[in-house]
């Protein structure tokens, strides 16, 4: 089974040289730590920055420089700053190559729910709906099942939807899967020590298993 770091490390393997990437809050933010230094990529923060750098050292904390999770950050050399309208213009316009975000549920059609639990959580969608509606490639980082064991990879989402038919790839604590439109979740890799049967049991939506399924390699 993968922990949060493991999920982040596996997603980092999907990153390619030259990509502009938007990272969501939580596990997606951790992905930045595991992108190989040999790759030249630019991280976008939807509050108006291309070129997110590492967290600042104690003496260099700047309240005017935060990421979308409101954490203090630095800028890489060659960064650019802009307004929220420009930022979502580049998101909607399809200029961001890869979006990595968390989810509460994903359906076999690629629908995602990650912004609201009726009656419980009313925080708002932030930029998630804009991102999922327009991203060319969306990878979701999530737990395969809830704490009480219920599958989060479903035939249909039960929670309020964030976007329809948008998720392309999912990395969970148990597996790596592609969403194949009109077909279902295609199992690509198993987490270390996890069997195909265990993944089948944990997946409510249609799971496609073809041939030998390799273990995730790091």
């Amino acid at each position, binding site marked *: 089974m993968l922990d949060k770091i493991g999920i982040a490390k596996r997603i980092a393997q999907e990153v390619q040289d030259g990509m502009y990437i938007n990272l969501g809050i939580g596990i997606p933010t951790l992905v930045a730590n595991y992108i190989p230094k040999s790759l030249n990529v630019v991280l976008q923060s939807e509050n108006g920055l291309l070129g997110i750098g590492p*967290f600042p050292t104690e003496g260099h904390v700047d309240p005017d420089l935060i990421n979308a999770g409101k954490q203090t950050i630095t800028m890489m050399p060659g960064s650019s700053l*802009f307004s929220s309208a420009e930022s979502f213009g580049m998101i909607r316009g399809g200029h961001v190559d890869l979006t990595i975000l968390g989810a509460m549920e994903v359906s076999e059609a690629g629908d995602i729910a990650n912004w609201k639990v009726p009656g419980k959580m009313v925080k708002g969608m932030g930029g998630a709906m804009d991102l999922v509606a327009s991203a060319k490639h969306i990878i979701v980082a999530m737990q395969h099942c809830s704490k009480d064991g219920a599958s989060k990879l479903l035939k249909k989402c039960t929670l309020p939807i964030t976007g329809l038919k948008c998720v392309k790839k999912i990395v969970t604590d148990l597996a790596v899967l592609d969403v194949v439109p009109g077909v279902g979740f295609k199992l690509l890799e198993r987490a270390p020590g996890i069997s195909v049967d265990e993944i089948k049991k944990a997946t409510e939506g249609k799971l496609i298993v073809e041939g030998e399924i390799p273990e995730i390699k790091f």
Partner: protein
Amino acid sequence: MINKVVANAEGAVKDIPDNAVLMLGGFGLCGIPENCINALLKKGVKGLTCISNNAGVDDFGIGLLLKSRQVKKMISSYVGENAEFERQLLSGELEVELIPQGTLAERCRAGGAGIPAFFTPAGYGTEVAEGKEVREFDGKKYLMEHWLRADFSIVKAWKGDTSGNLVYRGTARNFNPMMAAAGKITIAEVEELVPVGALDPNNIHTPGIYIQRIFQGKNYEKRIEQKTVSKSA
């Protein structure tokens, strides 16, 4: 050049009436008009509709106006850091309209740019789409969204000149430029007010035409929501 300088925050907000529709710049606590928020608190104006990406935290930013029950309605994209907000929302004391962040930014931009409506894919197939016109362009579905405009927009910049030209710093720019253009009256508070001619015209972020009142704020706290540091450079 036209001089738009007012003495202070109290002077800038003095004619904001009860039930006004306000836009307030900022993302989280970054780039928020601290001085004007405090002046509104002191003035005690009630029934406000606040258009702002976030609602501050319990004891800072718009959170202060929520606590004092001066806000009737919030129009925001994310309000997760404010327990008092959540309490008022769940109890029905506060009206809330949650809007996708990019849609909020573009609705403000449209308001300032004279575009009454536009189409965006964000929110299609979700509860955000309820009651909205859907149209298909090149095989993809889009929602029609309307412009937003305000009686008063209140923005915060790093530097400004006496005719209202503004320069923002870092990610404190965020919603401020669009909101500056979408207010019938726009108030700018700046950390440093400079004479006309002191700012490079090549590097103005908000042209002064959008600004009606400007003043140099004081005692900026610039509170940080999540201080994250690394050990080595």
